[in-house]
């Protein structure tokens, strides 16, 4: 296996606060990698940098062998690097189905001229997208609320919709930012199942930020521990859980 995401010596500061501190890590292709760490370790900041939502101060990020440092999010999307949001984002006044239909990239209808000049082609693509969106909405189990405005969905359903969004296009890597937070246990089982299926059947690579250790244990191998803006250890969940350094980072040193 080779590294599909390669983060090299990345630094990021907000004012005087150094959030990411010479951080280097690799995500292996085809793996479900966990990214854990105490609050303020810089997990979300690193995610935002990787997803093109935040500029970095120095360092380099390579995706699939290509330098993607400081590329905007929409370009990364078209290369197959997708992300979900820690706090679920949705187009609140579109329906759940329309939310999914917003996603697919590079269609004729996106060009101003095609809208007027090639209505037939635009309509065919639109039908194709609708068909796929219906498949996805079945897959994530939101068929019954497909025509509800997304703003009215529950927090957990919005999270499922976030995952569904990543299935509307042929993603290579999906960054999941605390997808389990605020999702009830039953729904969480569905979520984990869906992530595993996407990984196995469609070859998605996942990088998962999570506080839920149970979910990390079920889903992720390897696990990377981030503390104070850089990688502390990396290994299987068993190795991580027994590592005294990690325990100290989470619970403080016993002497203190």
């Amino acid at each position, binding site marked *: 296996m080779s590294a599909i995401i390669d983060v090299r010596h990345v630094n990021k500061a907000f004012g005087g606060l150094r959030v990411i501190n010479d951080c280097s890590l690799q995500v292996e292709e085809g793996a479900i990698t966990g990214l854990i760490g105490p609050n303020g370790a810089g997990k979300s900041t690193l995610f935002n940098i990787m997803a093109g939502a935040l500029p970095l101060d120095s360092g380099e990020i390579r995706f699939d062998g290509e330098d993607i440092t400081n590329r905007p999010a929409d370009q990364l*999307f078209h290369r197959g690097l997708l992300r979900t949001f820690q706090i679920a984002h949705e187009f609140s006044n579109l329906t759940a189905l329309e939310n999914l239909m917003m996603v697919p990239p590079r269609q004729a209808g996106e060009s101003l001229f095609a809208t007027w000049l090639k209505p037939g082609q635009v309509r065919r693509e639109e039908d194709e997208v609708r068909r796929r969106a219906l498949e996805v909405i079945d897959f994530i189990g939101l068929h019954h609320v497909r025509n509800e405005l997304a703003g009215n969905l529950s927090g957990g359903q919005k999270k499922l919709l976030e995952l569904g969004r990543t299935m509307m296009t042929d993603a290579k890597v999906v960054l999941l930012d605390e997808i389990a937070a605020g999702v009830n246990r039953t729904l969480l089982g569905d979520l984990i199942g869906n992530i595993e299926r996407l990984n196995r059947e469609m070859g998605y690579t996942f990088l998962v930020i999570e506080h839920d250790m149970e979910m990390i244990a079920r889903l992720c191998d390897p696990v990377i521990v981030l503390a104070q803006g850089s990688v502390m250890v990396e290994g299987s969940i068993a190795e991580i859980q027994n590592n005294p350094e990690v325990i100290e980072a989470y619970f403080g040193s016993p002497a203190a």
Partner: protein
Amino acid sequence: MNELVFFINNVVIAGSVAGSIYAIGAVGVTLIFSIMRFAHFAHGDMMTFGAFMVLLLTTLFPGAGNAIGVPTPLIMLPLAMALTALLAVGIDRAFYKPLRAHGVKPIVMVIASLGVTLMLQGLIRLFAGTGGESLYVDDRKEIFRLTVPLEGVRVPVVITEPQLYLFALTLISVVALHFFLSRSRLGKAMRAMSDNPPLAQASGINTNTIVAVTWVLAGGLAAIAGTLLSLDVTFKPDLSFFLLLPIFAAAIVGGVGHPYGAIAGGFVVGFAETLAVFNWGILLRPFRDSLPEWLAQAGNLAFVGTEYKIVVPFFILVAILVWRPTGLFKGKVI
């Protein structure tokens, strides 16, 4: 009946004219707000710029319209729309984009747009002079006087050629905009971005493209509104600047960020203005004999004098916001 015709001329037609212009202007303001979240004060001057481009082109090629039998300014309008759209995109690249890149607060953008207003107005004055100019360089402005086929009616219904064009173009713009926003993917992408910009970007929508498209739409619509207003009266460098406040009132009344609301708001403000300055005494004149003396004696029964016309949109604005704080339509996003 003469009184009723007078009412049609002074309220129905005049209100529709003002309403159409406010509506087209307010749609532009509201689109810009929904995508970029700031009040674009230079919108009035983008309207003037559009009209100025028509004036320039018509002066250069005064005979162009005669070949087809349409007034030359109207032939030049699509070209002026393109030029105004180009100006709008250029202004964005030069002034607003760097500010956005720095992540400034909306109020900074508003002040920047105020700067652009003064700059544009100065530039137009520099080239067009400060006086009024007729856009009908080599054409004649047709005025239709429709006599009402009823006995005793002497006053004709008066409607001018540019007013008819105004109504037609308003209708076409509104319908085209509706189909664009609701059917095309680009329109949907605009709605998506107005709803949730980070998610739009994470869904592969190029936000720079959407911003550019918004300016093209706003610029094109501004050129239509400015030109048709100047055709109806005359071109003056400060003409549209004075429309700016009613246009903002219209956008807010309709619900900021809501294009259909802006259209409704435009007509509400337009009719409110004309109804408020209309002398209602005229309508009472036929019933003079049966009215109490104090009412029959009253000369001018307008709510406010014409010189206070500008007050009306703001009275309406405040009244509607008290009654419905988000505007007539639920505002904020497309």
